[in-house]
């Protein structure tokens, strides 16, 4: 690999406590080094905000339900078509674009690492196939355990180590990254068309509660020493009054890890609703943010809603069916035996709609009310709240009270009495944005150690150079410049190689799939446990030997081995 020198960059690198220094960044063999010699390729980044490559710790870009979102929506595909050019393949789609489109658009915005938020283990091979067609980012997949029969039986038997052993084996079998719980227990109940209301209901037949699932999985995660914490989509998503359930859930979480949070609660916007029905619907961002402020062991992501068309997709099957009954457009559902489920529906978030306007406000409120930016990640739960291409607008909204007020003037007129947003004066600074879009995400995912999310010596040379003259711009008034600047990098560098320049894709890259392989004592190897094998071969519709994802599905990959405590 050749050397690269990025000169005169205005650098913000929160992990290394660099906040606006003019520096040169030297790169050799894909890593950041002290310096490079004369022959290096030079990028002059003078006057450009230079950050570690963006990291999205919660997005839906690859896998069965994402692809089904495309499959059922030719109208969405027609919205984003671009012709093939040079190394760039033709692309289609707006809210659920093709794999190439996702990869190119993220690259143009300076994103270099993506976490697919929900992979059904039985269908993991599909996610990995699409990963290998995602050329410009490193990728990883959180793995769904919300309705896992083996885990629920272990919980019923009070056998924590067994639950951990099942999780550990499954993660290595399907090349997953971390534990995802989506409406724990609810997706299993949905197998017979039911749901759970909050964390104290019993899951039919298995007789365990969501609270028990969440607690056991948090402890299993720590026993397995996984880099990332449990990634939780709380029960009761999208329902008026659900904030109480969210707070009850957050209050369950012990503080178990010095390096990172113990729980990552996702798209909390969808879980911070007050009122008892759609008429009394209102924001409860304040009590939820207060809970987060009091509990450093919790990190959340916003799940910001932005106005316009999108496609919602989640493993939360019952929630999608309820949403479909409100929207009446079209509905797909896909339950996965012994594990989880999913649903997909298109939606249109409208400014004229009071509920949608309140939802839009809640996401912003959460980001402004959570004091510590390391505890709140900037996401839309792409594409659920909005497609990720809206991130620059969200950044600008967080940096500018004036922009928020201007937008607020266009939403439903009754919104003001239902939210606190207009009263919030806080304007985030560049450093806080850098935390919420890369440094904090890397830390929450536990991947700073492999060189992600920062620009220190030895870090992966994933670098985003934005055409933003920080000293020259007042983000609180010049928000359009902020939006434009974050929408398209001057340069995006992936592993030391410039992959896009001014919106042009330069290379057909090769990503790395990051997965976790917990090393468990042989006597705890669940794949040799007769009861588990019997359960597997009897009730799954595939043989156990055909379940693990073969190595050939991972093109380039980084296996993070952990020393499990079981």
């Amino acid at each position, binding site marked *: 690999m050749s050397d690269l020198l990025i000169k005169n960059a205005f650098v913000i690198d929160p992990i290394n406590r660099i906040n606006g220094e003019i520096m040169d960044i030297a790169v050799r063999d894909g890593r950041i080094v002290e310096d490079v010699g004369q022959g290096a390729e030079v990028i002059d980044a003078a006057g450009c905000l230079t950050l570690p490559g963006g990291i999205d710790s919660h997005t839906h870009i690859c896998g069965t339900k994402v692809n089904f979102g495309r499959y059922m929506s030719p109208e969405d*595909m027609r919205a984003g078509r671009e012709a093939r050019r040079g190394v760039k393949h*033709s692309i289609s789609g707006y809210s659920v674009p093709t794999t190439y489109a996702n990869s190119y658009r993220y690259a143009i915005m300076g994103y270099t690492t993506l976490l697919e938020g929900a992979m059904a283990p039985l269908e993991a091979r599909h996610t990995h196939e699409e990963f290998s*067609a995602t050329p410009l980012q490193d990728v990883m997949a959180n793995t769904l355990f919300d309705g896992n029969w083996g885990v629920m039986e272990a919980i019923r038997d009070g056998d924590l180590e067994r639950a951990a052993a099942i999780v550990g084996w499954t993660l290595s079998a399907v090349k997953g990254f971390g534990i995802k719980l989506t409406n724990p227990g609810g997706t299993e109940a949905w197998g017979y068309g039911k749901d759970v209301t909050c964390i104290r209901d019993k899951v039919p037949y298995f007789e365990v509660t969501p609270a028990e699932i969440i607690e056991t999985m948090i402890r299993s995660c720590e026993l397995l020493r996984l880099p990332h914490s449990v990634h939780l989509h709380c029960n009761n998503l999208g329902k008026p009054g659900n904030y109480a359930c969210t707070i009850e859930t957050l209050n369950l979480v012990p503080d178990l890890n010095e390096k990172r949070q113990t729980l990552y609660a996702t798209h909390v916007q969808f879980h911070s609703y007050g009122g008892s029905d759609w008429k009394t619907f209102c924001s409860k961002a304040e009590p939820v943010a207060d809970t987060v402020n009091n509990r450093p062991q919790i990190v959340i992501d916003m799940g910001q809603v932005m106005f316009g068309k999108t496609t919602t997709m989640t493993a939360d099957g019952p929630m999608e069916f309820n949403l479909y009954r409100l929207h009446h457009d079209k509905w797909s*559902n896909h339950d996965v*035996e012994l594990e989880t489920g999913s649903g997909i529906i298109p939606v249109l978030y409208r400014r004229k709609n009071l509920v949608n306007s309140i939802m839009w406000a809640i996401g912003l409120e959460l980001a402004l009310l959570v004091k510590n930016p390391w505890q709140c990640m900037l996401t839309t739960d792409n594409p659920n709240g909005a497609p990720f291409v809206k991130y620059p607008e969200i950044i600008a909204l967080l940096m500018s009270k004036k922009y928020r007020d201007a937008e607020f003037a266009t939403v439903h007129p009754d919104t003001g009495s239902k939210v606190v947003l207009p009263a919030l004066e806080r304007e985030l600074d560049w450093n806080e944005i850098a935390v919420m879009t890369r440094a904090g995400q890397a830390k929450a995912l536990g991947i700073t150690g492999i060189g992600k999310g920062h620009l220190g010596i030895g870090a992966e040379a994933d670098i985003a150079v934005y055409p933003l003259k920080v000293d020259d711009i007042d983000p609180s008034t010049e928000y359009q410049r902020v939006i434009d600047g974050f929408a398209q990098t001057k340069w995006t560098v992936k592993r030391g190689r410039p992959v896009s320049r001014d919106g042009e894709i330069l290379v057909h890259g090769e990503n790395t799939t990051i997965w976790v392989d917990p090393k468990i004592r042989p006597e705890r190897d669940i794949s040799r446990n007769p009861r588990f094998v019997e359960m597997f071969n009897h*009730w799954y519709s595939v043989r156990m030997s055909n379940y693990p994802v073969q190595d050939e599905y991972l093109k380039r990959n980084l296996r993070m081995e952990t020393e499990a405590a079981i």
Partner: protein
Amino acid sequence: MIHRDMICPFCGCLCDDLVITTEGNEVVQVDNACTLGTHKLMGAWKNRLKNPIMRNGGGWRDASYEEAIEYAAGVLLDADRPLLYGWSSTQGEAQGLGVSMAELLGGVIDSTTSVCHGPSILAIQEVGHPGCTLGQVKNRADLVIYWACNPTEAHPRHMSRYTTYADGFFLENAFRDRKLIVVDVRKSETTSIADEFVKVKPGGDYAVFAALRAIVRGRADVVPDTVAGVTKEQLVRIGEMCKEAKFGALFFGVGLTMAPGKYKNIRNAIELVDELNRYTKWTLTPLRGHYNVHGSNEVFTWMTGYPYAVDFSRQIAFYNPGETTAVDILARKECDACLIVASDPGAHFPKACLEHLAKIPTVLIDPMHTVTTPLCRCQIPTAVNGIDAGGTAYRMDGVPIHVKKFMDLGYPSDTEVIGRIFEQIKEVKHP
């Protein structure tokens, strides 16, 4: 040698529990597969074409792989509107290369979907798809409907692996506790074991779905005494059964997609299932024929945004079934070269299409001599996925399975051959 947990590369059930015994390069025994699967596995090593063949006046001559691949690449490069068709009985990796090749060529790529479940996809694009994996059905379903299909003959192990004869986790005595309804225009092997056989007059499916929807909604009063030959009494009984089931699963075949009404039938079926979900749990699954036809839809979708019939002539992916589907392109004599991979249009397409195929340079990639062979100018034999080649396939419910290779007969795989054609095309076409 005994190979366990092998995958059957025949129908969309993708059974993965086969035990195959080989002696040298011969399959001597296949356990667990149905007759269709067994036949394919036992026979496949025999009737293979030995090497590529090319037209020689009125006859054929042998050719080397180099020559045949060069010919194929040349034909595709020379064409203004090449059609790349088939893809349902090959590995996902080959399908992916096919898409990239069509993109670079500015050609059209289509799979056999357009002549089987294309209408199902059109319906799904309008109203969605309440589905599930087959293990959900196996473990939960107490009511199964097969509509316009005959799994006993077309998917022989569907019932024993996933429905009627399968054990179910939540069912005490699955065989006794499960009810079976079969809807068809005529009696078949499957109808003979049904608890209810609903005999519909040909072309009457749409009306029957509509009547059932009305009944489920509580509007039996608007339903006439008979609907497409089915009595109201039976329809009401079935409506009740559907609502009372704890978990219902509706499967349907090409008897519905290709019947009068086409995609409207499926749309109505989906909306019936959707309606039933307001009372209890219901799912719907198209019974896909070729073992990897669903895979072609998946691969095409993540690469282009559309499940089949993708036209790259404008450099963007363009999709308009009825215009960009293989049969339509051939019938309009639009394409000037054709590459056919792992399918047999010669046996299925209308005569006018075949006449055009015979007129233009058509290249076939297929292990065996088929009905399509006489229409071609060149045939390149390849390994059979699931026998002497491996790769990915998607089951009818979307579960991706790694189809395994268990012997080596010296043939290149589809992926290899298409990869080599693509390389040659890239040498000329790429900047």
